[in-house]
């Protein structure tokens, strides 16, 4: 069905945006994209910089670091050192998308397809977002947070609140729950559990007494039990619940920062997928519009120009290279999955027997819903794409003065590259593994953290300043121990600073 193009002018109007949006919505529905309702907002450059400064949120509590970010962005923008994004999209219900007023009509249409249907459906469908974020509540929560922190500033002074926020921000990455906690028990359940336990104990009491060894028991009693009994990886949560000196408002501030960290936690882990999904859909939706005749050749040329520059991956030796472009990787993987479904080769049948030849829409939808970057790459990166991107692995051991190419795009290297690349997106590898190990409950109340060293990677210098921040929150001495996999402490940090000792 050939139809008239919606527009042929670069200038956008609200009417045209509405028309494009309606057409894109129709086609998106045709592809069964499930989205939140959209709220499309047109903003200008300065408002975009405001949004940048407040981590993309429509409103945010005040903090100097956002001012710093604003100054940085506006300085860079005004001197032409950087452009601003064409859009920002917020995981909320309705899904808020900011469109820049400078965009041409083509750009607005691209951005609507990308953000309002691509990202939007990802937010609604992906399991991480479903588990960890509540899209319908986020804006209300931001309002609450802003007002609450504003009130704290009035009551307790801007400086007190600021130092609290500084400290919390330093631990933001360590303020997320990585696994769902079991729901707290109701009193009835608690009582039932106690009864069950008693009954169980009673039944086994004889065996207990017969195997009772008094000597062993004595030595156990000597060593103090750890608190917390198991190491705690959510540092902010632990501090919020257990720090001895904090006032209620300070605990609430920690909670607010923790909630924000939790809200952003899925985004950090799904960058490749999220952008890939959005790029795939802006491409697919626009292509369909072109085939229906809704957009003309000029529009399509402009679109392709924009699209290809977004998904361009400079090679590693290019001066513009700054790591793997998540848009490129994500888009290519999505397209590759579609290809494997539609036109599988013999190789694809061997590597992906379960999806080769399956209906692509269902397969992609499944992939979007049930993975994060790490597992997505591990599951779906195909040998063909590794060849196309000419990926290779570099092994960098600080003990050696040479770098080693450990795998390239050949038969023996595919699997290794795939798992190396997946690891590159594993937050567990990217961030140091630091957990709360012990609180000296009966002694000086000092807090001991443990850094579990992975692949001999040490902590950066910043650790000392972070400890200062933790000390602000905890109120007593802080110790941090770097521990190897053999449970050997090789370096300790202290706050207040005794000399940092190298135990080795």
């Amino acid at each position, binding site marked *: 069905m050939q139809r008239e193009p919606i527009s042929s002018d670069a200038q956008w109007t609200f009417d045209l945006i509405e028309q494009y949006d309606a057409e894109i919505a129709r086609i998106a529905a045709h592809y069964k994209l499930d989205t939140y309702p959209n709220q499309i907002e047109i903003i200008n450059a300065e408002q975009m910089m405001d949004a940048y400064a407040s981590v993309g949120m429509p409103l945010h509590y005040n903090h100097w670091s956002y001012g710093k970010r604003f100054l940085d962005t506006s300085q860079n923008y005004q001197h032409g050192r950087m452009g601003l994004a064409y859009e920002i999209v917020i995981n909320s219900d309705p899904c808020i998308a900011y469109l820049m007023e400078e965009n041409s009509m083509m750009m607005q249409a691209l951005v609507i397809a990308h953000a309002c249907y691509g990202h939007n459906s990802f937010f609604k469908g992906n399991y991480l977002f479903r588990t960890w974020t509540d899209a319908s509540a986020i804006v209300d929560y931001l309002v609450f947070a802003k007002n609450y922190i504003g009130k704290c500033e009035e009551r307790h002074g801007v400086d007190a609140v600021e130092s609290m926020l500084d400290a919390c921000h330093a631990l933001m990455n360590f303020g997320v729950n990585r696994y769902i906690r079991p729901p707290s028990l109701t009193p009835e359940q608690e009582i039932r559990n106690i009864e069950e336990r008693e009954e169980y104990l009673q039944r086994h009491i004889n065996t207990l007494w017969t195997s009772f060894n008094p000597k062993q028991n004595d030595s156990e009693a000597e060593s103090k039990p750890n608190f917390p009994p198991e190491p705690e990886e959510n540092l902010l949560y632990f501090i919020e619940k257990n720090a001895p000196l904090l006032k209620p408002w300070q605990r609430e501030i920690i909670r607010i920062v923790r909630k924000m960290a939790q809200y952003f936690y899925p985004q950090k882990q799904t960058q490749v997928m999220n952008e890939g999904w959005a790029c795939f859909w802006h491409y697919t939706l626009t292509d369909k519009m072109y085939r229906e005749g809704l957009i003309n050749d000029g529009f399509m040329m402009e679109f392709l120009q924009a699209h290809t520059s977004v998904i361009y991956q400079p090679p590693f030796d290019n001066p513009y290279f700054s*790591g793997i472009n998540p848009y490129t990787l994500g888009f290519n993987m999505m397209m590759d999955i579609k290809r494997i479904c539609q036109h599988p080769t013999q190789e694809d049948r061997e590597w992906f027997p379960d999806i080769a030849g399956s209906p692509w829409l269902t397969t992609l939808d499944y992939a979007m819903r049930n993975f994060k970057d790490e597992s997505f790459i591990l599951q779906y990166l195909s040998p063909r794409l590794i060849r196309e991107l000419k990926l290779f692995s570099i092994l960098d051991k600080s003990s050696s003065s040479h770098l080693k190419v450990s795998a390239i795009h050949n038969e023996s290297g595919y699997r290794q590259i795939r798992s190396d690349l997946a690891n590159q997106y594993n937050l567990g590898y990217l961030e140091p593994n630091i957990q709360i190990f012990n609180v000296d409950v009966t002694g000086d109340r000092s807090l001991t953290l443990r850094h579990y060293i992975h692949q001999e990677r040490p902590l950066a210098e910043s650790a000392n300043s972070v400890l200062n921040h933790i000390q602000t929150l905890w109120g007593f001495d802080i110790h941090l121990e770097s521990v190897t996999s053999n449970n050997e402490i090789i370096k300790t940090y202290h706050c207040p600073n005794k000399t940092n000792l190298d135990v080795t």
Partner: protein
Amino acid sequence: MSFIIDRRLNSKKKSTVNRQRFLKRYRKQIKKAVEDSLNKRSIKDLQHGENITIDRDSTSEPYFQHGRGGTQTRVYPGNKEFVTGDEFPRPPAGGGSGNSGSGDASDQGIGEDEFTFHINQAEFLDFMFEGLELPNLIKKQLKSTTSFESHQAGFTSHSSPDRLHLTRSLRIAYARRIALSGSSSKELSALKKRLWQLEAEPVDDQSALELKQLKQKITLLLENKKRVPFLDTYDLRYRNYVRTPTPSTKAVIICVMDVSGSMTQSIKELAKRFFTLLYLFIQKNYQQTEVVFIRHHTRAAEVDEQEFFYSRETGGTIVSSALQLTADVIEQRYGHDQYNVYVAQASDGDNWDNDSELCHKLLKDKILPMVQYFAYVEITQGVHQNLWHEYKKLQSEFEREFAMQQVRSSADIYPVFRELFASKVD
């Protein structure tokens, strides 16, 4: 269903508070940058803000991250000639992102060393005057205003016909007509309705009588209505103009400074601060401000700013030479009624003994009658010399036009400045 909202008209300055917080937090560093830049700037050159550069390290927000070292595997795109097992020396650390191996800049958190941003003029002045407590400098009544400006201020009922405001007059007339004839209009329409009703019905005696009465009443009412004039004299409204005195929009500041050997560069810096303040203050009140620089040792000369502040002269001091030149400059170029003349004199108090009397006379007879204000600052740590004592005599005579103060250190400048100009508030 999508909602499309135009947010462009919403407020843009969402980041203002955060920006202020940032400036407040790094006040010390910024203030230092401002002070450095102040020394480089011309005193006239304070119309714009300044790019402030501070150390990026001091603004960093620390978090736990990996340092260099350990074992890492990274995947790169765009392989050209490598095969598995190739080894090559590690490229230098911190190299450009183009280097293989160290390209993972984001991982190491390496950024630029300096953080540069722009502050505007108001903020610049804030920082400049910080610790000096910048008070409300404006809104001071400047005296000796010589020109008037007339502007519209409401409406009056009596004025000349050329100021008649038609719309307003007619509006009032209309309101009056409604007020005066409103009730009869209502009655009239009721009567007319009745009349039409009766006319439609067949005529009998009773209705004929009523018809007649109705017609009479209607004519009466119509006549009454006609008597309400369309436009009456008290409907007329005229534009009202008032004449307000405006300060003459031009001002000139004559900076007089002793540059004899006894004036060190640091004293000159203090004087420069003082002149700068004066310039800013005057400029806030006038659209156009000129500055004349007169320096003197034993002879006076009019010079440009650069020479005024930075050239070194030696020799004795005769203050009257400068005052004479000042008087001449004012007389010739800045006639009394077009310009507001301000004179600021800075000196370390040295003068040739016999000259001070002459200075007194020059000021009293020639200069003070012509100027808005004459401010004298003596920048000295020591005891006052004869010039101070001569000037002191003038103070009682010219309370409004003349003021003098001593400045000992840079901390005094602002308070002194404020005192010098505070006398005008009353």
